[in-house]
C-alpha cells in the first residue's frame, strides 16, 4: 500500500489508522500522522496515555492491532527491520559492568557507524569526556542517559524514537538533547520524542501530537 503515489518522496514515517489494544483494551489510536525528513515531532500525553507503547509499535517491537506503519513507503514489521530506526527507551540497553566506550563499540557493531564520528568523539560531544573507561555502573542516571544519546549519534539511523529523552537530565543535558536533535534534523533525520509535558523541546517550533489518557482521543496541533 502506497498512499503517496503522486508524491515523489514518501514520508520517512507514516502511521495509517494505527491502533493498539492490549487484551481488547484500547491503548491508543486510531492515529494518522506522518513524519518527514528534517522534522522533530513531540508526542505529549499524560502518564498512561500510551506514549511508550506507541513508540514500541512504531519501532516494530509490537505489532499494531490495526492499521500499519510505513517506513519510507514500505510496511514495517519485526521481520523486516532496517538500520533506519533507532529506539532510545526507558531501558537504555547499557551493560553496567562495561565501560561507556565498550557499550558504544557494541552498539556500533550491532548498528553500524555513521561517517565522520568515533565513539570517543560522540562521548565528548555529550559531555562525557574523561568517563570513557568508567564502568557505566559508576555513572549517574543522567550520565547513563547521555551515553544512550551518544549511541544515537553513532548509528546511522535516520529516524530516532526517543522515549522521555529529557528525564533524569539537568538543564545543560536538556539543552544538549535539543542541540543533538537540531543537528539530526539539519542532517535530514527525523525524530519522535515523547514527553509528559514537564520539559519540552525549546528551540524551533516542533509539531506536537497529543495523546489523551482516554483511549481513542488524539488531536494533532501545530505548536
Amino acid at each position, binding site marked *: 500500500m502506497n498512499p503517496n503515489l503522486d508524491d515523489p518522496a514518501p514520508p520517512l514515517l507514516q502511521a495509517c489508522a494505527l491502533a493498539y489494544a492490549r487484551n481488547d483494551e484500547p491503548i491508543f489510536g486510531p492515529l494518522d500522522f506522518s513524519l518527514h525528513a528534517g522534522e522533530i515531532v513531540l508526542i505529549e500525553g499524560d502518564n498512561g496515555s500510551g506514549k511508550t507503547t506507541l513508540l514500541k509499535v512504531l519501532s516494530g517491537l509490537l505489532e499494531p492491532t490495526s492499521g500499519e506503519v510505513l517506513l519510507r513507503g514500505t510496511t514495517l514489521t*519485526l521481520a523486516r527491520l532496517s538500520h533506519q530506526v533507532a529506539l532510545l527507551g526507558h531501558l537504555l*540497553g547499557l551493560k553496567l*559492568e*562495561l565501560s561507556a566506550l565498550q557499550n558504544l563499540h557494541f552498539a*556500533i*557493531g*550491532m548498528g553500524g557507524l555513521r561517517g565522520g564520528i568515533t565513539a570517543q568523539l560522540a562521548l565528548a560531544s555529550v559531555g562525557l569526556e574523561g568517563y570513557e573507561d568508567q564502568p557505566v555502573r559508576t555513572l549517574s542516571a543522567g550520565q547513563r542517559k547521555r551515553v544512550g544519546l551518544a549511541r544515537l549519534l553513532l548509528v546511522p539511523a535516520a529516524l530516532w524514537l526517543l522515549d522521555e529523552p529529557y528525564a533524569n537530565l539537568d538543564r545543560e543535558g536538556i539543552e544538549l538533547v535539543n542541540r543533538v536533535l537540531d543537528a539530526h534534523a539539519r542532517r535530514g533525520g527525523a525524530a519522535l520524542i515523547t514527553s509528559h509535558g514537564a520539559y519540552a523541546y525549546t528551540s524551533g517550533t516542533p509539531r506536537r501530537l497529543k495523546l489523551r489518557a482516554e483511549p481513542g482521543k488524539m488531536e494533532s496541533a501545530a505548536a
Partner: protein
Amino acid sequence: MKPGTTAAACAAVLGRDLALVWRRRGDALNPVLFAIIVVALFPFALGPETEVLARIAAGTIFVAVLLAGLLSLDGLFRSDLEDGSLEQLVLSPHPLALLLACKIAVHWLTTALPLIAVGPLLALLLHLPDGVLPVLVGALALATPLLSLIGAVCVALTIGMRRSGMLLTLLVLPLIVPVLIFGAGACNAAQLALPTAAPLLWLAAWLALALVLAPLAAAAALKISLT
C-alpha cells in the same frame, strides 16, 4: 556511513558477552564449582570402594555437569531483558537467530567447556577406568552444547514470566533426559567393553539438528515473549 555487517554484529555480541562473563567471573564460575563439589562429595557418601565408585562414575559426572548447566541457564537472557539490550538485539536488522546463536555459544564456552576440561580430574575422583575417559569427554562435548541449545529455547519461551525458574526446570528436564540416557549410556557401554559408536552418533545427529533449529526456535520464542 557504514550500515554494519552481520559478521560485525555477531562479533560484537561474542565480544561483549565474553567481556561480561570476565567481569562477573566470580559468579560465572559458580556452576563449575557446583559440579566439582557434587562429584567430590560422592566418595564421602558412598565410601572409597573402587568398584562401587567406578560403576557410578560416568553417570554421576554426567548428572552433575547437566545440572550445573541447568543452574546457569536462567541467566542466559535475564540481564539482557532487564537492561533493555534484548530489545536492541531484537530491533537490530541482523538475523536474531544468529545473534542468539552467538549468545548460546558464549554460554557453552563459559559454563560447559571448563567442566569438560576438568573432566579427567572428576573421573579420577571417582576411579573411572582409564579406557572410558575418552568416551566420557566425547559424550560430554556432544551433550553439553545440546543442553545449551535446548535450554536457550526454553529460556526464550519463559523469559516473559516473572518467576520462571521452576517452569524452566520443568520444561528442560524431560528434553535433556534422552541426552543423559545416551551420553551416560555410551560411557556404560565403554565400561563393559561394548561398542559406543551408536549412542555417540545419535548425540552428534541431535546436536547437528539442534545447532540449526534451536537458534531459530529461540528467536521466534523470544519475539513472542517480548510482545
